[in-house]
């Protein structure tokens, strides 16, 4: 760890921000086309974020501010761990469990800040978000557990490299199709896209955790959202789609997966929170357990 790592980290953060935010903008356009609208400019997302940052804001006390800073900081730190294709800011730190748990710092920070506003909608939203997390994370972790056992490595880039050795058929999504499906469903949950977006439901709980945010707080949360999307989609790209030997490969895979999920999201209604939990525990979890069982006890797809 030296200054160069931090400089790389900063660059990586910038790149991730530009990439993901552009992609979000493009996706807004895509969705608009899907709905037969013209849609906003492809850089609309940048405008939104900068506008929010430029505005005045209100605060409900130090924990309201601190939580937002902690959330964005935690998520940014996580993003630094993520290999951007072959590029890594800090080598040897892309352990999947580290990422999974550092990610939680951001979640906790945001939850804390939201509850710190004293608005019950925020707390309801947080309670839903955390419940959602309990639902989608376990099938996902289960599949990841199987992968780690299969390849004896918990490094994202290591797992990606192993997949690339086998060419297209080496991709985990093809080797372990059940696990791949589980991961995609879980990713949908992680991203908070439909049908698993009940925690921000704007019409019933006034956008949940976000209810009290405006101005720079809101802008930072938008940044946070972009980064966490980047982290989560990158996880799947690395774990199941062979990562990227080049930056371009990575970006293309990333964009395809992200757009695909967005399209899926836009044709689905919304689960209630208990329905989401039941769904995740009935279908993806069962699939994940079967997949892990196949990997661990039968060695299916491993060698």
């Amino acid at each position, binding site marked *: 760890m030296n200054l160069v790592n931090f400089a790389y980290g900063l660059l990586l953060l910038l790149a991730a921000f530009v990439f993901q935010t552009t992609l979000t903008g493009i996706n807004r356009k895509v969705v608009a086309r899907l*709905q037969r*609208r013209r849609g*906003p400019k492809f850089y609309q997302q940048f405008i939104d974020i900068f*506008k929010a940052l430029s*505005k*005045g804001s209100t605060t409900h006390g130090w924990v309201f501010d601190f939580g937002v800073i902690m959330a964005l900081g935690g998520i940014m730190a996580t993003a630094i761990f993520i290999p951007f294709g072959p590029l890594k800011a800090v080598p040897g730190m892309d352990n999947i469990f580290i990422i999974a748990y550092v990610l939680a710092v951001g979640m906790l920070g945001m939850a804390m800040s939201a509850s710190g506003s004293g608005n019950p909608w925020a707390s309801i939203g947080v309670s839903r978000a955390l419940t959602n997390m309990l639902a989608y994370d376990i099938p996902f972790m289960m599949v990841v557990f199987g992968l780690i056992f299969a390849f004896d490595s918990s490094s994202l880039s290591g797992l990606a490299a192993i997949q690339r050795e086998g060419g297209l058929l080496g991709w985990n999504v093809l080797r372990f199709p059940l696990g791949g499906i589980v991961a995609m469903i879980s990713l949908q949950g992680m991203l908070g896209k439909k049908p698993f977006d009940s925690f921000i439901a704007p019409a019933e709980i*006034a*956008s949940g955790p976000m209810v*009290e945010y405006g101005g720079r707080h*809101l802008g930072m949360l938008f940044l946070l959202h972009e980064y966490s999307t980047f982290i989560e989609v990158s996880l799947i790209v690395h774990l199941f789609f062979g990562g990227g030997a080049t930056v371009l490969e990575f970006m293309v895979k990333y964009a395809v997966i992200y757009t695909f999920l967005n399209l899926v999201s836009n044709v689905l209604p919304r689960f209630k929170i208990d329905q989401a939990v039941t769904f995740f525990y009935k279908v993806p979890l069962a699939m994940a357990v079967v997949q892990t069982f196949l990997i661990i006890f039968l060695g299916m797809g491993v060698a």
Partner: protein
Amino acid sequence: MTTNAKDVRKTWEKIADYFRAHSIWMKWYCTGCGAIEMPPTMTSRFDMERLGMGPMATPRQADVLLITGYLSAKTLRRVIYSYEQMQDPKYVVGFGSCTLNGGIYFDSYATMTRLDHYLPVDLYIAGCMPRPEAIMNSFDTLIKMIEKGEAKGWKHYQENHEWYRRNQLHSLKEVYVKDEFHE
């Protein structure tokens, strides 16, 4: 020295105003009529998102307070509350004739006939009801106003707060944050 500093701020403000103009999030305060005009404006026919506009869930997140329809003493109080919860810079758009002059309810004892006595309205959309075309047209105007830095209602409200507050108290006949169930 001071002018210089003012200029620098102005450049910064200009950039900010560009962003603000092209990303307008709205909080709709729909009192009864007018709400039905918003979905067509939002969906594929007129697609307000292409201007970077969209509805928002809470006043904290919103830039524009869109007030549709007439206001009574009861609702005015809540509109003011919502407005004060919004973050600067914020804009108010009065939608429909009722916000202008009370519309067909102009002679009701309970109707607030002039919205701009109580809140700094940046833009009125006349009509009963205004059609989506009119709404889109006015949004276009609003964007231009913001971009040019002409939508200064929020500053006006700050500077003339005394006056607004006096009007509010006069019409509401009570401390404005008090609710009738708690007096």
